[in-house]
């Protein structure tokens, strides 16, 4: 096919992204890195609010990398990659939140 040799609009049928999507992803990542930096270094918000800003921007950046750089959305069905990722995140959150929860109420450590 003509488009296969030209490769101009290959992103319409190949799942490898385009320059535009990489640039958008990069700009979003930069913005999502600068926001928490400014917030923390200038002491704009404190305590729990600052924690929320930090975690939300980190998770958003994770999503940006998944979509714009790792092309997770362009995966074809059945979406094994996405399912494996969800299982992995579930295990990860169980380990992290479970550890924090247990150790917070650990009377031996305190």
């Amino acid at each position, binding site marked *: *096919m003509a488009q*296969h040799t030209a*490769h101009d609009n*290959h992103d319409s049928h*190949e799942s*490898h*992204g*385009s*320059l535009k999507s*990489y640039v958008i*992803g*990069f700009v979003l*990542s*930069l913005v999502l*890195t600068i926001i*928490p*930096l400014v917030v*923390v*270094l200038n002491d704009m918000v*404190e305590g729990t609010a*600052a*924690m929320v800003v*930090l*975690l939300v*921007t*980190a998770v958003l*950046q*994770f999503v940006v*990398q*998944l979509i714009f*750089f*790792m092309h997770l959305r362009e995966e074809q069905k059945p979406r*094994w*990659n996405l399912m*494996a*990722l969800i*299982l*992995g*995140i579930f*295990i*990860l*959150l169980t*380990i*992290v939140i*479970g*550890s*924090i929860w247990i*150790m917070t109420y650990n009377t031996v450590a305190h």
Partner: protein
Amino acid sequence: MAHQQAHEGHHDLESLRLMGFWLFLITDCILFGTLFATYVVLHGNTNGGPTAQELFAMPGVIAETFILLTSSFTSGLAVLSMNQGNRKGLIGWLAVTALLGAYFITLEVTEFVHMVHEGATIGTSAFLSAFYTLVGTHGLHVSIGLCWMIALMIQLSKRGITSVTRRKVNVISLYWHFLDVVWIFVFTIVYLMGVM
């Protein structure tokens, strides 16, 4: 199209290998999850030694963050060049990515050496044990990625873009994006929350 169909069986095997690598990344995610859990639980136990606030020098860490972020972008550009059949562009962007990665590692090692000179070693406190293990494991991943990337550049210059090297480039680019994601969480949870 005919060329693609001729390699249909081959292509399926390569995409299966790509998925196998994805599964490895998920397990690596869990590995980092346990290290993060350890760090979060132990970060207050400084044993009279330096705390995160006294220790971390943010300018270097901010530089590391932007360098790794840019290298994640350039590894994407390498894949883009490959999809356009541009071997020179592919090797060039991989080289840029590797150089940024090497610069990142240099900054990190310098930071570690500086901290050890200040008396903050891995044995000083539970906080520092967890810190060096977490950040060091990430640094080790980046170093392995660097060696791998150099080997791949040599292979690409010898064999060109084939279905096998194409898969390898896709795999290493996934790996590199993954390392950037892990660093974002190191940056947020260890450094930003540490100096807050």
